[in-house]
């Protein structure tokens, strides 16, 4: 990390993108104090992370790791999900209620008594997410939640994140351009490269600009790419479009204008 200044508001939805090794995971680990900055300061709800323990910060900032194997260690899925709740001193009855909610929400009911380590990669990711969401952190940080997930699971994740927004801020680290393009509401996008912040703005502005996409070693999203190619073939079309329905309208109106 080299000279990053960033403010994330309550209830905000922020996506952090950038090439492998850009510092994305390092940055989000400063949010709950797992990493303390060597220079500069990180404040969470006005508290300097240097003055607080990881346990205190974690109550506010729930971090779901990229690799669920780094997060899961209990003997059953149920214990895994209840673990943090017990540590945070929730009442027995409340724990039971929340664990049941999480098992149901993440389609994990049939695995209640199963060891998390025997689950598939996608299922483990759901357990890891459930075990954090269950304590309702005010800020939720998801590191590469779509990695290795199939399309249907991504759809579920998209709906879930949308449902969480409003009550809490969600910060998501991802490489998945089309996943971000399909997110509603569209997030604010922060682009990192080589430990520096290279762009911070609306997803539709940054993802439709090939210079940023290439710098961040991302794959250009298909919709603006179609429009850019069309434009170079002589069609009078805008290229700052991510949405397929909008692209259809842009193309049809360009045709109508002939």
């Amino acid at each position, binding site marked *: 990390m080299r000279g990053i200044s960033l403010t994330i508001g309550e209830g905000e939805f922020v996506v952090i993108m950038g*090439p*492998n090794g850009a510092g994305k995971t390092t940055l989000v680990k400063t949010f709950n104090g797992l990493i303390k900055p060597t220079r500069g300061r990180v404040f969470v709800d006005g508290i300097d992370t240097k003055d607080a323990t990881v346990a205190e910060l974690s109550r506010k900032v729930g971090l779901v790791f990229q690799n669920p194997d780094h997060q899961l260690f209990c003997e059953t899925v149920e214990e895994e999900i209840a673990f943090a709740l017990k540590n945070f001193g929730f009442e027995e009855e409340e724990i039971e209620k929340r664990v049941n909610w999480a098992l149901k929400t993440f389609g994990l009911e049939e695995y209640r008594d199963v060891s998390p380590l025997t689950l*598939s*990669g*996608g299922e483990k990711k759901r357990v890891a997410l459930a075990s954090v969401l269950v304590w309702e952190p005010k800020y939720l940080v998801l590191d590469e939640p779509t*990695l*290795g*997930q*199939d*399309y*249907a*699971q*991504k*759809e579920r994740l998209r709906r879930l994140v949308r449902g969480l927004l409003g009550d809490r801020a969600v910060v998501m680290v991802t*490489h*998945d*351009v*089309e996943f971000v*393009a399909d997110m509603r509401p569209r997030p604010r996008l922060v682009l990192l490269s080589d430990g520096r912040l290279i762009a911070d703005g609306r997803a539709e502005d940054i993802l439709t600009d090939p210079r940023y996409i290439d710098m961040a*070693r*991302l*794959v*250009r*999203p*298909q*919709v603006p*790419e*179609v*429009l850019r*190619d*069309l434009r170079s*073939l*002589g*069609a*009078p079309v805008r290229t700052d479009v991510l949405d*397929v*329905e909008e*692209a*259809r309208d842009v*193309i*049809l109106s*360009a*045709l109508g204008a*002939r």
Partner: protein
Amino acid sequence: MAIIEIEGLRFTYSGAKKPALDGIDLSIEKGEFVVLTGPSGCGKTTLCRCLNGLIPHFYHGDFQGRVVVAGLDTREHEIWELAQHVGLVFQNPENQLFCLTVEADVAFGPENLGLPREEIRRRVDWALKATGMWELRFRAPHELSGGQQQRAAIAGVLAMEPDILVLDEPTSFLDPAGAADIISLVAGLCREHGITVILAEHRLELVAPYADRIIVMEKGHIALNGPPEDVLTSERAIELGVGIPKVVKLYGLLASSGLELPRVPLSPHEMAELLAEVAKFGDRA
């Protein structure tokens, strides 16, 4: 002649209640680029393991039906024998690399075949060059990026000079540019060296432009099997939760608004060209 022939394949892992593969019939021609997709747990990985004999020789269970690869029935031939015809590349290249240098890793397979020194040299050099790893051959695998590691793993498999390359989600651990790079490398091996490719992958926008065929699996059987243009525009693909590339979605939306393109585009560039053809934008200038 088909290079892979599968008939009535059923496989249940030891101790499992349900079969992982439940009646697969499939024939793949030499030189084809076949994409295997479907929801997690649909049996893609199990099918890949059946192609090089890991099933039934390494993973045990109840095996029924027949898998014939390059003329060899996988039940009657051992893994080392099958490995000279089918190379398997895994999700995580770290699980496949273990030597001190890339070159040593690539030489490992041919050395174990007991080939003459010059033949090993020739194969290793060819595999390193074909995968763009020549310059990095003296580096330690753990110093490389994920994409370079996956290239090294592919080189190791290529040094066996297989007819068939089976890749089980080889890009899951790579960043998008690294993933695109690996897919284009594999497509080149298919096109230039006639290697038959079976590639398990979720991100169809990345692989559809190269695919001769897309096979969608569901619950251990084959639900869809055909050219990408047909599979990606079928209702069933949407029901099965297949991630339809945006260009194909846009094609569908335009078609229902009365703008029919002559064929289904599989890449943004192809879509723009088809649109320009239909609309003749260029003529306005």
